[in-house]
Each structure stands twice: as structure tokens, then as C-alpha cells.
């Protein structure tokens, strides 16, 4: 409850809530109205959701479609390093890989973004130059989100000032799990404001929300609050981006666009290590929300080791034989 404990955290006018788009403009007028709306969303049958992703997982993507899928997936990667031990050297190395993932093949697409802690965003920006690759910074006391509103906003402003053009924030799970949905909402609105021109991805940390009903509700909070992307996880908690979670979040963005006309992106992060996992996600998008989301502007993979597996599979398709770790670079 940061803004009650810390009444100076935000100036008064920033507390005026940005009303969500119609037809939802009145659902955030009060705690009880918001709760009634969120709990009135259709429930998710867990077994049914798992069965659906199970069948989609049997899709056989081979030859030309596999090649397309691999290249597409590479172009959607937010190449990530979020370790306490990160240094400018590490970030520069990552940026170089982001620009040229496969030194042996200049035809290989570059990734969508590099994702780092806010204090290293500047290093990334400089290293990426005019490559067009985005700099995403995690902020708002990532990964736990346990800090005062003022600290979280300062974290965002810092990252933006350093050159991040995308911000990956975390929602307040403690507030969510105690039913303080409006607090979660308001915080996202405030962060969005602090982002300025930077795009905002809202991390729900689905592993801590546990139920698919909660994932649906949290998705709606984030979309109503003005997030540009909804994102599954920080990657620091297991389970992270499972397929049933991704299914529910994709249904949410689909329903939101149908109702409001606004398209919101989706980013699964954590636990996507293999090309197979990535392709399953692309199939999920294709058959849940459609081709409009099959684009780096609307879909990203939050991953670190995934890129190398994509490169190995790409090499296999090109050369006809299985590749090995010596043929891809360590970051």
C-alpha cells in the first residue's frame, strides 16, 4: 500500500486515474466495482486449458514452416541477462551476439531486443548503436517488486534516462493476492506515465499467481492500466511461461482487442529453452490470436539459452546434419 504509507510518492494530479478504454471505462471507479468486474470474467477450466495446449503441442512443424518458424523466433527474442554478476563487459558481449547471433551466417536475423537491469541499459544502448535492436530494462524493484512506490518509479526513470526504450515492470503480487486490485492497477498506470515514450511490458509473475483464473484477472488489470505488453514471468520463479498460462494470456489479449480495438503484445519468459518450446508458442499464437501477433512488435520471447538452440536447429536445417555446442557462441 505504498501510496498510503508514502503520501508524497506521487503528486496529486498523477493520482487521477487514467480511465480504461470503453466499454470498461467505469470498472475502475472503486475497489468493489473493479473486484466485481475481475471476478465476473469467465473462469478457466485448468484441465480443459491443459488439454487444448496438449493437442496444439502435437502440431508437426517441418521443413519450410520450421525454417520460417526458427527465423521468426530468432527475430522475436529479447536476449536477456539479469544476473547480480552482470558487468558492462558481459552486456557488450550480449549486444554483439544480439546483432549477429550466428557469426558463421550473416543471413541469420538479429534479435528483437536486449534485456538488462536498468543500470546497464546505457551500456546496451551504446553497444547496439543504430542496429534497430531495442533496449529493454527491467525495473520496479525487479524481480520481487517489494519496494516503495517512489523507489519503483525512480527505478523506471533511471532506466529510461539511461536509454532503455522498453521497460519490463513487475506487478505487486502481494497486493494482488490480498485482493487489492485497484492498487495493482494504479501502480501500473503510474509506471506507464514514468515510462514516457518507452513501451511498457507488465510482468504478472504467473508462477506466484498460481491459478489460471488469477492469470486471467491479472492480465486484464495490466491491459486496462495501459500496458503495451503483458509478460508471464521474471524468469526467477518456477514455473514460469507454461503453455496453459500463455494460452490464457493470449485469450486475454484477443478478447481485449475484440472489445476495445486496442492490440496488446504478449511475452512469455522463463522456461523456454528449446526450439520445440518456441515453436509450440508460435503455434499457440497462430491458432489462438492469429497472425497479427506473429511479429516482434507484438510478441517476444524472454530467453537466454533459447537463442543457441534456435541457432543449432537452424544450422541443422541448412546443413542437413545435427550441430553441436562448438558451432554456437557462448554469450
Amino acid at each position: 500500500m505504498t501510496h498510503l504509507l508514502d503520501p508524497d510518492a506521487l503528486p496529486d494530479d498523477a493520482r487521477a486515474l487514467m480511465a480504461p478504454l470503453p466499454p470498461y471505462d467505469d470498472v475502475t471507479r472503486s475497489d468493489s466495482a473493479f473486484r466485481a468486474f475481475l471476478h465476473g470474467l469467465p473462469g478457466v477450466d485448468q484441465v480443459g486449458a491443459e488439454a487444448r495446449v496438449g493437442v496444439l503441442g502435437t502440431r508437426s512443424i517441418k521443413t519450410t514452416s520450421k525454417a520460417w518458424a526458427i527465423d521468426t523466433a530468432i527475430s522475436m527474442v529479447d536476449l536477456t541477462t539479469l544476473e547480480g554478476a552482470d558487468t558492462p563487459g558481459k552486456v557488450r558481449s550480449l549486444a554483439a551476439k544480439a546483432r549477429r547471433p550466428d557469426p558463421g551466417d550473416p543471413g541469420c536475423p538479429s534479435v528483437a531486443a536486449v534485456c538488462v537491469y536498468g543500470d546497464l541499459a546505457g551500456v546496451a544502448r551504446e553497444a547496439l548503436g543504430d542496429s534497430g535492436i531495442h533496449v529493454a530494462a527491467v525495473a520496479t524493484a525487479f524481480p520481487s517488486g517489494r519496494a516503495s512506490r517512489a523507489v519503483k518509479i525512480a527505478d523506471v526513470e533511471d532506466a529510461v534516462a539511461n536509454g532503455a526504450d522498453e521497460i519490463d515492470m513487475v506487478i505487486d503480487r502481494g497486493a494482488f493476492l490480498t485482493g487489492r486490485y485497484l492498487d495493482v492497477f494504479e501502480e501500473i498506470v503510474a509506471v506507464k506515465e514514468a515510462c514516457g515514450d518507452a513501451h511498457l511490458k507488465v510482468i504478472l509473475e504467473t508462477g506466484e499467481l498460481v491459478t489460471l483464473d488469477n492469470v486471467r484477472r491479472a492480465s486484464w488489470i495490466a491491459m486496462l492500466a495501459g500496458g503495451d505488453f503483458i509478460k508471464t514471468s521474471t524468469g526467477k520463479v518456477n514455473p514460469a511461461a507454461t503453455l496453459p498460462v500463455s494460452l490464457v494470456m493470449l485469450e486475454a489479449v484477443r478478447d481485449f482487442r475484440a472489445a476495445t480495438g486496442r492490440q496488446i503484445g504478449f511475452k512469455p519468459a522463463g522456461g523456454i529453452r528449446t526450439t520445440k518450446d518456441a515453436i509450440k508458442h508460435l503455434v499457440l499464437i497462430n491458432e489462438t490470436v492469429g497472425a497479427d501477433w506473429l511479429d516482434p512488435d507484438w510478441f517476444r520471447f524472454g530467453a537466454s539459452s533459447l537463442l543457441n538452440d534456435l541457432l543449432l536447429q537452424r544450422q541443422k536445417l541448412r546443413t542437413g546434419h545435427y550441430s553441436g555446442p562448438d558451432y554456437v557462441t557462448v554469450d
Partner: protein
Amino acid sequence: MTSSTKAPFEYAPAPESRSIVDIAPSYGLFIDGEFVDGTGEAFKSVNPATEEVLTEVSAGSEADVDRAVAAARRAFTRVWGPMRPADRSKYLFRIARLLQERSREFAVLESLDNGKPIRESRDVDVPLAAAHFFYHAGWADKLDHAGLGPGPRPLGVAAQVIPWNFPLLMLAWKVAPALATGNTVVLKPAETTPLTALLFAEVCRQADLPPGVVNIVTGAGDTGRAVVEHDDVDKVAFTGSTDVGKQIARAVAGTRKKLTLELGGKAANIVFDDAPIDQAVEGIVQGIFFNQGHVCCAGSRLLVQESIHDEVIASLQRRIGTLRVGDPLDKNTDIGAINSAEQLARIRELSDYGEAEGATRWQPACDLPERGFWFPPTVFTGVSPAHRIARDEVFGPVLSVLTFRTPDEAVAKANNSTYGLSAGIWSEKGSRILKIANQLRAGVVWANTFNKFDPTSPFGGYKQSGYGREGGRHGLAAYLKGNDA
């Protein structure tokens, strides 16, 4: 369909290889442990997706049926009946393991012969068939514990006639409990889908099953009649059309033959306003388009609460737009071919009737192959209980949509049928599900799911959907003395 300006993610063809199956140019009958020529007229089995002739199959004449029943009787009296139950159990375990070992072969063959997508035959039909044998293998030496009385005895020779919609699975549902309880069988597969039954005969040989325990007599209606009406048969088990079921019931009247029937259905899939909508849409699609709608328990009537009708139909249409109709051997195919020209004609006839009666037909844009028997997924909205397409079983990928206002009305409409095989209920409220389930006159009620089958779970209908149950403890009763199932 999405209103997308981007090209969708196209899936390249992903065909399962045919080379794993070895189809002979012709097949005889499997009697007394061997393949023998039939004395009836041979007929062709055709791949419904391409109209290609797969092979020639014998038709069992009355004389052939007589030989088969005699072989089954001999095997029952001398070998299988007196055998230690633990040994029967072992034979059934062997058969289960062989089905698992040869599963890919069976799946491909089933798709070629039946037209169903390889994903279904691979992931549903064949694994369930193996599971049925595995489950029943364990019962063979535990019948005293089945709650059917002490020391239950088998009936003798069972005549079994199965349909074309799940050829191998229906064979498993019939043969496994019959053998586990100590009976021997004469099985007549459907005319259009004999091949996996004939491959099953090979499995019986590989398992060293004593000759005569399982006999497979291929043929059409006449062969089926001969099998069912043979004097030396103690038990008749039939799955198929309601009309033929009635004929069989008449034919066994006054005889000693025990009868179980699993006939048609026109199941209501009831969606309440508090349903988990996305999963309900999935369940509706599964309910009527799984296996091209060739399912006796298909959810062919959608009963949707009027307040959410438009929303559900819109979601349904969007979802149906992603269904992939095509080559059954392509691993990405969701909906395969209609099983035969006859069935296709019937589906078309009933669909035309639906439009003539005033319902609104909707189909997604679909490229159907030129050769073969194909029908696109179809939804009729504005259907009333008085319409033929609300009452008659289409046995194809055709959904009739009706609405209701209250739970009582939903139940009344759901029960307003001469059929009573299955039903679906979609709601997040447990007490409502249980209340409605209690009131539905249907043998199988699926709540928040549909078309789920398991060897441990009894399956069968009320009213003109038949009598008797298959699967579970209850399913054993039909094959044992003293239990009028």
C-alpha cells in the same frame, strides 16, 4: 477467421509415412487361428480420403459363420473355458503389449481405412484400445472381487458386431471383456473398415492365443445377421445404428441369447452462462467435430443459455475457422474424411433438410480435396426442438444450436429425445453440475469436458441408445451368467 493483414503461419505438409503398413492384396477370414478363404463374395475396402482401393476382403457366408461359431465353441469347451484364469490374464496382457508395440502400424492402417486423422488414431484410438486389453487382462483372475457374485461363469460364445467409426477401439471394447470373463468370440467388423481387425488377428497369432478363441469374419449386413442369428451363440453384443439394433433385438427374442446394444445418440451439450467459456467452446468443438462427428455420443445439439448465445456462437465460429480439414495421414489434420459415400449422402440430405426447415447454416471457408468423401464442419443456428436436425442423428460434423433460459428448460430439452446416450454440462458451479447430471436421462454425463473415455469408466445409453454398459466393473456383467445387464 482473423481479420489479419499478415500471412498466417502456414504448416508445411507433415505426412505420416504409409510404409509402416503392409496391406496384402486380399484377405481371408480368421477362423480357428488361421486365415482361410471365405465362400461368400469378396468386396473391396476403400480409402475414403482418396477413393483408392486398399484391398479385397472376403465376405463370410452362412457356412463360414457356421465354421467360425463351431471353432469358437470348441475353443470355449476344450481350451478357454477350462483354462486357469491367470493364464487367460497373461494372454490378454500379451495382446495389450503387442498393440502397444505395433501401435504406429495400427494407427496408420486405421486412418487409411477409416479416414480419421492420424493424430486421433495415434493419440486416442490405439492407446485406448491397448488400455482396454490391459485393464481387462487384470480382471480375468479377479472376477470374484467384481461385485457380481461369487465364482462368476462365462456365457460361452459371443457374437459381436461392431461399427466403422472406431474400428479397432470398438473391437477392443468387445473382445477384451469377453475374453477376460472366459468367453470366446466371433467378431464381425464393419464392412467399410475391416483392416485393423484383420491386423488384430495377426496380433492374436503373435500372442499364441489358442485357435478359435477369437474369430474374425468380415462381411456386410448379411454376414452380421448370420453371426447374430446363429443358434450356437450364447451372447450377442452390437454397436451400430438404432434400426439394426432393433432388428437384432427382435431376432434374439425368445432365445437364450443375452443381448447388449450400443446404438445412436443425439446428445445435448448444455452451456450455462457461468461456463468457462473458452474451454466450453473447445468442448463444443470436440463434442461434434472429433472423429468427423462419427460418434454415437457426439454432442450434436448445443443447448446454450440464451443470454450468452451470440458470444458463444461468435467464439465458436472463430475457433472452427482454425480447424484443419484434409489428408488423414497429415499429422496436422484435425478433421478427416467422411467414412463412405453412403454416409456422406446421408449427411448432405439431413443438412439440406435443416436449411429447408428454416435453420441458418454456417460453414467456414474450406478447401476440400476433389477425390474422396468430404464435408466441412457445419453449424446450424436457430434450430428448434421440432426440427429434424434437432432430433435425427446425422452422424457427421453438423452441430444444431438451440437455446434455453433456465436450468429446468435445459433439462427438458436435453431429455426430449428418444435417445439417451450422453450429455454435456458446462458450468463452474459444482452443485449445479451435480443437480443437472442427476436429472439428465443419459448414460454418460460429461461435465466441463466431452468425449472422454477410459476402460475403467462404464459407457452405455438410456432409452433407444441401447442397454448394457461397456467398461469398468459394470461392463463385465454382460458376459457372465446370472447378471442380467
